């Protein structure tokens, strides 16, 4: 990491023309991972990556330069190039650098980077040994552990001088069932910012069994129907619906350029009155948390929707200039090769009042999606899609036969209004969200909810 005088030299160079703001982002990331397939350790990798990004703003005009070469002379040259490209009116000023503020959102007992790969392999082997002897239909068992340690320092012309360190672990267990020419999988992939104690305490056998059961159920299942119908979305990763259909459309990336169906709708009813939702980056040890964002702002617990009313957007520095409001501490990037922008962290629909059992009992016919895949949204049109990995037909208020191969589609602005029951079993689930500033760790979440009508794109 640069010393303060080097930082100042870069900022001075960057501000030598007409920028009103300049920022240095310096990052060091260490990574290690192991992967098993059918008991064999097929991959063990170690990585080290570091680099620096320099961003200049003049109003809403931005210039971003970055390099994996951290040599001060290389960066001074890049800063000079950036200064010549920025299109502002006047020369801005540089405030005195504050004392370094170091933060970390993780409460770690066992540092994952200190754990040997042999220990990780021993853990993963428990899963593959169990899966491969569970049922003759289970033909493959894959698992992996990936750990990263990321230190990100932000220095800017407003005197911000912060460093945030995150240590993350992602575990993945996937089992595949084979029957005739059919292969289906069951998967769990929890992520955490807790230490390696999370792995030590993880109920690996129970979770492996759940994966095997899902894979076996799905390989025996028929195809999902194709029709509009009530859909019950299970808790935890079911929250991908809110992430896609609503979350992305609340980011300043879209709202700031009026490319969102929720533009200019603060204070308006955008969801059913039983829906409240938050984006909370402050939850201790959660996969999508951080203490300080990639612009040096303190992370926040943001109320997005309260009883159906839109309360807040997710706003970064550039978005705040476009939208004339304050940043909300949500600016993130995959690494130094991306300029930061507004992103989600731990985003979820809050608990409602219904018992999940009552939601099922109150549904005469519909689809119960218990395991979701990923999805995507076009924030200009509202068109969203997300895949269902495991689902059941609900018939006469009871869970009936399993079905597979369905994608749920609709318009984001309509689906939120069609949520007619919200359960009380909120859970979060880890994922990686891809957008303009790269892939960032997020959690999605919700209690069990029911949407009165969604188009289920099946084959029957």
């Amino acid at each position, binding site marked *: 990491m640069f010393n303060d005088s080097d930082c100042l030299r870069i900022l001075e160079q960057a501000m030598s023309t007409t920028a009103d703001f300049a920022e240095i982002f310096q990052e060091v990331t260490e990574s290690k991972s192991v992967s098993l397939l059918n008991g064999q350790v097929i991959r*063990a990798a170690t990585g080290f*990556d570091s680099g620096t990004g320099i961003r200049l703003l003049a109003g809403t005009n*931005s210039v971003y330069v970055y390099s*994996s070469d951290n040599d001060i002379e290389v960066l001074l040259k890049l800063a000079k190039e*950036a200064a010549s490209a920025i299109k502002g009116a006047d020369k801005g000023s540089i405030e005195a650098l504050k004392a370094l503020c170091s933060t970390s959102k993780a409460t770690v007992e066992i540092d994952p980077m200190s754990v040997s790969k042999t220990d990780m392999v021993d853990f993963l082997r428990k899963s593959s040994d169990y899966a491969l002897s569970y049922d003759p239909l289970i033909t493959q068992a894959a698992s992996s552990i990936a750990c990263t340690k990321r230190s990100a320092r932000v220095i800017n012309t407003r005197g911000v001088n912060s460093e945030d360190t995150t240590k993350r672990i992602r575990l993945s267990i996937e089992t595949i069932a084979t029957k005739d020419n059919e292969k*289906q999988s069951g998967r769990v992939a929890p992520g955490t910012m807790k230490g390696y104690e999370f792995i030590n305490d993880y109920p690996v056998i129970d979770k492996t069994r759940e994966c095997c059961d899902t894979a076996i159920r799905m390989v025996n299942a028929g195809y999902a129907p194709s029709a509009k119908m009530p859909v019950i979305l299970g808790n935890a990763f079911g929250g991908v619906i809110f992430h896609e259909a609503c979350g992305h459309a609340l980011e300043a990336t879209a709202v700031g350029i009026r490319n969102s169906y929720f533009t200019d709708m603060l204070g308006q009813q955008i969801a059913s009155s039983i829906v409240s939702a938050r984006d909370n980056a402050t939850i201790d040890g959660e996969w999508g948390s951080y203490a300080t964002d990639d612009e040096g702002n303190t992370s926040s617990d943001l109320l997005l929707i309260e009883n159906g009313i839109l309360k807040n957007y997710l706003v970064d520095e550039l978005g705040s200039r476009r939208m004339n409001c304050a940043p909300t501490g949500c600016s993130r990037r995959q690494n130094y*090769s991306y300029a930061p922008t507004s992103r989600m962290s731990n985003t979820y629909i809050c608990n409602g009042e219904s018992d999940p059992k009552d939601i099922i009992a109150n549904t005469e016919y519909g689809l119960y999606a218990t395991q979701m895949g990923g999805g*995507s949204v076009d924030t200009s049109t*509202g068109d969203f899609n997300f895949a269902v990995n495991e689902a059941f037909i609900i018939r006469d208020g009871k869970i009936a036969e399993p079905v597979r191969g369905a994608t749920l589609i*609709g318009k984001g602005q309509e689906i939120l209004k069609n949520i007619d029951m919200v359960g009380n079993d909120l859970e979060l689930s880890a994922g990686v969200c891809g957008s303009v500033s790269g892939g960032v760790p997020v959690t999605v979440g919700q209690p069990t909810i029911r949407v009165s009508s969604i188009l289920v794109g099946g084959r029957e």
Partner: protein
Amino acid sequence: MDIKTAEKFMEKLVKAGKEFGFEECEAAFASENSMSIDILNGEVSSYENSATSSLSFRGLKNGQMGYCSSNILEESSIDFLLRSAMENCEVLNDEDPQFIYCDENNKNLYFSQVTDAYSKNTYKSFSELGLNLEKAILALDSRIDAVDFLTVACSTGPYLIINSKGLHSYRDSDGISIVASARATDEDGSVKSGDHYWIGKDIDNFDIDAFLAKFGEKLLGKMGAKSCKSDNYSVVFKAEAFQQFFMAFFSNFMATPMQRGLSLLADREGETIASSVFTLKEEPMYEKALTKIPFDDEGVLTTAKAIIDKGVFATALYNLKSANKAGRPSSGNGFRGGSNVGELPTNLIVEPGDYTFEGLLEEAGNGIILSDLSGLHAGVNAISGDFSLLCEGYLIENGKKGRPVEQITVAGNFYDVIKSIKSVGNDIINVPSGEGEFFTPSVLVSSLAISGDEE
């Protein structure tokens, strides 16, 4: 990091690797210089310029290949790279042998394809082009509200591989891309979005009129779109949609997933798996490709071959490890998709048929044109071939393009689709894909399940 400095570091690293105890070892260096400008509301809203590089080391010890990567090419990194790779070797217990390779007759390959045209890629030339393009898109039609995304970008960079067996090979590449996305409001107030792209090596070859014609067709053609009835339809995949669709299942043609039981094509080379009108070739040095690839990331010469020949699965793609397991030579498809060397395709070409796009519609009679597919990262089961995807397109009515459709899904199975290709068009497009590009025309498929909510 310049290539000469990297080369010296790599030579030192490989020598140190042997001394450290690796039986054989290899270093690969890749760097990229890139520039891009974004246009928004009549201004250059964003400019990016970058120089990045990374080095990947791999070493062989007791039959296991340990990997480690770093972007710090300094003396102090050598110990980290070697120790980490050795630690990884000690953890691995892969049963299949791996190789560091050198062909005595092709161990000093040098292939540079960056042309003088790259020097035309400047802030000035890109911003002028971008601003003109934004203005021209907005002038296409009064219903177009905004160009939300318009990027003009270029990148260039070398790839150098050096190993302890004497391999020392270099290749490089460059390219320009222009991507634009706009939204328009329909008469009923609903918003439609559309995008288009161009890729090339010389900015002077960008044909703005041709780009605008396609852009207008893709965006304005959606006006008035609505859903349709659920049913089984004859389907014409537009070329771009077919490329996206096919690549979502391409891992099935790679040897490593086959050998791991993750592809239903395992042990089926020589069998008929697709319609007899369908031929898919790989041509690493394809004349029309922007990027030609003479050797893979393991230093093996690439070769032209049919992957599917008139419906017959001719060959899978192999790297050194999977080829050895299969008892055959590598097909020159060993590329670093992530940190390890797996398999990837270079330039893929679907052999064109005799039909124009309009000819395919006539052949279909009634059905649906699929022009855009969404959710390919989630809505496919790459192993079983099952898919269910959000899509947009047009009805085909009496052999002609009819009204636009949206909010529909298409569902089926990849293996059934390639068997039921009835006709192949000749309207070829090229899209960046794998290590190279995918050249494909539109294709007509006999029947697929479409879900919509029209009564």
